């Protein structure tokens, strides 16, 4: 499984693997998200007949992909010591932007023309829109020193409001495009498959690999970790703290735009309320994956595993017929447990040092 590869190269920093005297319990703790995933997987595989069916696993992974892609962007932001609460709203706004461009085109009333774009350009403009909102967050945080929590909370409302304003709260339905206008093909993104797997799963895999590569093997990635670990030391080492932090928010906006496109395409319609509370699921995935909310510590691979833990848990519980009220409670318990174990591990690590 490809997820295993990501885990071994990324989710556990080489520390424990290379210092051979690390006690077994420390290794187990570091791999905890992965172990939790295996246990959950094994549990539902044994107790449920339908869980292991290919069809169900694909549905499960499709759901996970949405959260995981948001989680990838969120990981960058959290690694810098920030947080991005606006991603759910960006998902909704980007969906509406794409839907509007397909159904109504770009209206330039000054010239009294309406421009309909090719579907690739529609997607490009939507992604640009997501990145611009991310940049807005980044500018607030780095240039105007607004606390990330507040800045992105504000953007959460602004983006959601704009999404509602665009079509007066109404949905853009039936986004199939018009052959005469040359903008057909949008539903393929959500419905298309490659090697029997939906595109969204491939997108998640590609973004996870690129995301991990950027985090591990580029100066930008290294500097993200440094800023989250000690901003002042990073600055004195010549890291352009403001630019790098801003980029993290742009990446998060990019990921949210991708998710907006995928969901809108899957539904073949754009609804302004899409993506509500997605930000919380994304944060949960990041935290479950072992990334520290105070910054500087964590991996993209961990986030992907975290997203799978949440996905497997809710998919399995739905199949088992657990009441949705209990599902919510259990999800909360799992998140708290994950952070408690994280604290425990940090203390253990300190003591070993």
């Amino acid at each position, binding site marked *: 499984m490809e997820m295993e590869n990501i885990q071994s190269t990324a989710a556990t920093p080489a520390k424990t693997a290379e210092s051979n005297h690390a006690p077994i319990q420390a290794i187990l703790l570091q791999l905890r998200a992965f172990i939790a995933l295996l246990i959950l997987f094994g549990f539902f595989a044994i107790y449920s007949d339908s869980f292991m069916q290919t069809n169900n696993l694909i549905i499960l992974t499709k759901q996970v992909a949405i959260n995981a892609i948001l989680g990838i962007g969120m990981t960058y932001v959290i690694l810098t010591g920030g947080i991005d609460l606006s991603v759910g709203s960006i998902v909704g706004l980007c969906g509406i932007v794409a839907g509007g461009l397909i159904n109504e085109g770009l209206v330039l009333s000054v010239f009294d023309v309406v421009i309909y774009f090719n579907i690739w350009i529609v997607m490009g403009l939507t992604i640009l829109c997501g990145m611009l909102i991310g940049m807005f967050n980044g500018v607030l945080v780095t240039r105007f020193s607004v606390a990330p929590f507040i800045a992105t909370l504000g953007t959460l409302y602004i983006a959601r409001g704009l999404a509602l304003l665009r079509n007066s709260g109404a949905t853009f339905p039936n986004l199939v495009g018009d052959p005469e206008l040359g903008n057909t093909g949008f539903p393929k993104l959500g419905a298309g498959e490659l090697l029997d797997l939906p595109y969204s799963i491939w997108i998640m895999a590609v973004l996870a690999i690129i995301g991990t590569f950027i985090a591990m093997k580029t*100066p930008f990635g*290294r500097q993200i*970790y440094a800023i989250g670990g000690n901003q002042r030391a990073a600055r004195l080492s*010549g890291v352009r703290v403001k630019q790098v932090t801003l980029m993290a928010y742009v990446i998060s906006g990019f990921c949210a735009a991708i998710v907006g496109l995928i969901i809108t395409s899957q539904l073949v319609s754009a609804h302004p309320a899409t993506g509500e509370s997605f930000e919380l699921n994304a944060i949960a995935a990041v935290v479950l994956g072992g990334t520290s909310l105070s910054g*500087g510590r964590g991996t993209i691979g961990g986030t992907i595993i975290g997203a799978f833990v949440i996905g497997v848990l809710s998919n399995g519980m739905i199949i088992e017929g657990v009441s949705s009220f209990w599902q919510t409670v259990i999800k909360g318990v799992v998140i708290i447990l994950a952070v408690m174990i994280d604290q425990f591990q940090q203390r253990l690590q300190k003591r070993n040092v």
Partner: protein
Amino acid sequence: MNPITDDIILHAEKVQKVYPGTVALKDVDFNIYRGKVNVLVGENGAGKSTLMKILAGVEQVTSGKLILNGKEIAPKSPREAEALGIGIIYQELNLFPNLNVSENIFVAHEVTVGGSLVNHREQERQTAELMKRLEQPIKPRTLVSNLRIGQQQIVEIAKSLARNTQILIMDEPTSALSNTEVEVLFRVIRELKTQGVSIVYISHKLEELLQIGDYITVLRDGQLIATAPMPEINLRWIVENMVGRGSATAYTPAAHEIRDDALRVENLTLPHPGKAQGYLLDHVSFSLRAGEILGIYGLMGAGRTELFETLMGLYPDATGDVLLYSESLKGKSIRERIQSGMMLIPEDRQREGLVQTLSVAHNMLLASLRNHLFSRVVLSGRKEKNSVERHIEELSIKVSNRNNPIGSLSGGNQQKVVVAKALLTSPKVLLMDEPTRGIDVGAKEEIFTIMVQLAQRGLGVLFVSTELKEVLAMADRILVMSKGRITAEIPRAEATEEALVAASAIGHELVKAGV
């Protein structure tokens, strides 16, 4: 001083402390004599901090006993130790800058009316009494953030006394103090002794131990090496026991050729932030030549750190010019200055030098990532590995694996990682702010050797130190700063302790008379 007649207040017997993987203390016996200054020395990693933490209840013994006034004790928390009369003052002071002196002294031990309302008047009265006992003119209502470091330390001492401390542990109490402040502290310590308070004193500054200590205990590698009454021993004895070899204390730098101007600073001025007048840096001009080691000496607040930070570009509102090999650095960012060949080794390793969450290798590479690229944006693992391993070897950094967390290294080795990070940027001028702060004698000498090697390679080395002996031993030329100005420039041959101290006090006359 007579170990037989002097009264032992606390006796640690065969104390052992085992951490997973290491033995921090092996069967250590340690006596604290009543009303005396009991000095504890050893290189980093010798076990001083562990022993201190055990006494203060932060850590517990694996085996062995602590006997206080004839009774065995086993404090499980700092609060329990406090109740037994054992207090501790850490190197990094634990005060709340936003609260006033008396609030700080009584924090978590408030004097109350009816158990819930704080009786500020009574607290302030007791604070005034404590300050009288310590003979310090500090007012109870002064905000702690308005006090000088030395005064803040006095507040910490008062805090301990307010809790009826019988044994006061002081960890590197003078590391941030100027000479005048040290004198005040020593006066307070002597006063405490006469009042029967026993002091455990930990410091790296050996000369000062000879001055203030009554008994000395040397630890090395977790073991008790020697213990003696202070009058019977000398500096050489301490160093020999600490390092385990008879090394000379006075370091003599090897010859290095001084060449042309590397750095010229002209009229560098930094206004006091938030104040209409007054300068942190007052028209500072000097030059540094390639291959030269230029020392800067000055008291706390003289502007040494500000000078370095301004040179690095941290203060955009500074005026004046900085020329690095005739290239003006005016208006350049930190990053651009590093690329031009200037690099700072900051004073505070933990807060400014290192990123605790990163590994040794990643810390070392942080400032020079662009020199380790495989392609335009991708790092080369091979280049990174080569650089890191080369510097681990060249600076003899003791680390088993370059991917270990930076926190697993001793202070001296951490400092060498900071130095390595700076060297990887290929600097032409290196600014070293207190490069030997808080590291042991052995590591200090290694840092000195590195400085000389860098000068031999043609770098200009500018370094700041509060230790007179260090400046006198290392510098080819010494600048003395006081109140943001350069008050003296003294060549090596003419430098004396007296001259430095006199120049560093210029502008301080009034303050001095007041203390």
